[in-house]
């Protein structure tokens, strides 16, 4: 197969410069390190795409004695498995990022919130952390990192639900604002970053911000680790440059018969074949065509797949994983599911789909957190692009 896209090897590169990086960084002015991160253009890889340097700066400026740094390893989005791979093969890069963050914002305690499904990683990860603590002591960095295990709840990947969960409560998202950098874990200023985000800070600290910024396109800098699954001869984890068109991606990864790609998991968007060419993978910005942010989940569907079944599966997921706290999401997800079933069975006319689309859009505005708000992403993009498949 002809390869269009350059495979990168930054994140998974086998390099061990934690000590050098930490020594160098703690000798620098915190503002300079933050400015490096800001100028690198690094944005959060957990889905929302918040500028990482700015997040650290906000937490550094907060005026409370207790602060926390948390690595979000809840990775529950269907079709995402890159954080597991990063934590198994380059955990020291993630820890380096956490230590630098802790140093800059003034945190003495760090946590890795590891989803329960990844409990099998805990022993090896704990060993790396133990060794890391020895190094921290040598460098006189006052930080301890602990693993906090989740217990099977997708919503706990949402940052405020994650804090609630760590506090022993039901994983129900909080109202925002206040944001975590002011009021996070235990009500204290907290930086919470995705596993991959933290691993990228290692490369930026080692190679400088320009090397990172050279990769990608405007507003979407650097590389991104993609989790590729579905109808592909080569499923797996790939580090690619931001800014590629979906057509190029499908040329490399599809099976020659791709009819749609779901970008960003169940809470992401479904892109049909006719839009591959003008869809660019990156954060929303001044890119040509439609640009899609993504936590890195790329699920490819070929023409043998029923998009009704795909949507049904996603809605099953949301019905189960909705925390139930707010009505638009708790009732809305169920009604969307019942609704497409009714249309399929002919109990409702096809025009009923338009009412369901209205409901999904209403959830986007009224739901309390990102889960309920993003159901419309997949719902609307699948129903609008594959309307006949919903009916017949």
């Amino acid at each position, binding site marked *: 197969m002809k390869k269009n896209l350059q495979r990168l090897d930054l994140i998974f590169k086998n390099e061990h410069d934690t000590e050098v990086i930490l020594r160098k960084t703690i000798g620098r002015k915190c503002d300079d390190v933050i400015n490096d991160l800001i100028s690198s253009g690094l944005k959060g890889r957990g889905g929302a795409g918040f500028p990482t340097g700015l997040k650290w700066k906000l937490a550094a400026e907060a005026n409370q004695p207790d602060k926390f740094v948390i690595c979000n390893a809840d990775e529950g989005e*269907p079709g995402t498995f890159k954080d597991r791979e990063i934590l198994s093969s380059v955990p020291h890069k993630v820890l380096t990022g956490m230590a630098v963050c802790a140093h800059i914002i003034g945190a003495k305690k760090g946590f890795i919130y590891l989803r329960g499904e990844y409990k099998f990683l805990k022993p090896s990860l704990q060993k790396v952390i133990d060794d890391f603590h020895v190094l921290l002591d040598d460098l006189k960095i006052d930080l301890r990192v602990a693993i906090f295990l989740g217990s099977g*709840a997708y919503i706990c990947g949402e940052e405020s639900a994650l804090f609630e969960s*760590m506090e022993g*409560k*039901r994983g129900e998202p909080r109202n925002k604002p206040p944001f975590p950098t002011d009021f996070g874990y235990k009500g204290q200023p907290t930086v919470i970053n995705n596993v991959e985000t933290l691993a990228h800070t290692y490369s930026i600290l080692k190679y400088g911000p320009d090397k990172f910024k050279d990769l990608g396109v405007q507003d979407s800098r650097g590389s991104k680790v993609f989790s*590729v699954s579905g109808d592909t001869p080569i*499923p797996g*984890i790939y580090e690619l440059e931001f800014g590629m068109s979906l057509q190029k991606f499908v040329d490399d990864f599809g099976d020659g018969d791709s009819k749609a790609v779901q970008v960003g998991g169940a809470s992401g968007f479904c892109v049909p074949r006719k839009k591959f060419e003008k869809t660019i993978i990156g954060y929303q910005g001044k890119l040509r065509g439609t640009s899609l942010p993504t936590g890195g989940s790329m699920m490819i569907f070929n023409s043998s797949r029923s998009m009704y079944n795909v949507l049904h*599966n996603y809605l099953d997921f949301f019905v189960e994983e909705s925390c139930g706290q707010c009505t638009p999401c708790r009732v809305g997800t169920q009604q969307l599911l019942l609704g497409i079933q009714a249309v399929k069975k002919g109990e409702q006319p096809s025009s009923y789909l338009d009412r369901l689309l209205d409901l999904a859009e209403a959830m986007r505005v009224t739901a309390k957190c990102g889960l309920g708000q993003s159901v419309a992403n997949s719902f609307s993009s699948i129903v609008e692009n594959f309307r006949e498949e919903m009916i017949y």
Partner: protein
Amino acid sequence: MAEVKQLVKGLADQHGRSMESLLPILQGIINQEQHISEDAMVEVARELNISAAQVYGTATFYSFLHTKPLGKYVIRVCKTITCMMHGKNQIIQELEAVLKINLGETTHDRLFTLLETNCLGQCHKGPAMLVNDEPYTELTPEKVRAIIMKYKQQELNVN
């Protein structure tokens, strides 16, 4: 009852008695007993000096924290999209046949419980499942039979 008391006390000694210890304690109970009984919840509430309702609220929120008895080995087959596309139904059927139970049930010898779960983060190697904490990927009916045999054998050796 006395046993549960001991277990909960030990876990509280290990993890602490603040609210932040609640989830680790509940997880510790699951490790030992596969489910959190009402007695255990009351005990946890007493140790942490919080209401039993609070413990119940947290315990019932998480899909890995069960409040009904389960088998010693809890099998969770991923039912999310990629695993579904790659034949998870066939895997469930095979497990039902080998274990002689339906989805959601526990075998008579209380060794195995068969459940479905959402995406396990192994989609590139679907179909996937967990047996307690252990992931198994790229499953085929033959592989599934061998895995179940392995656990049964392990039990025979223990007894």
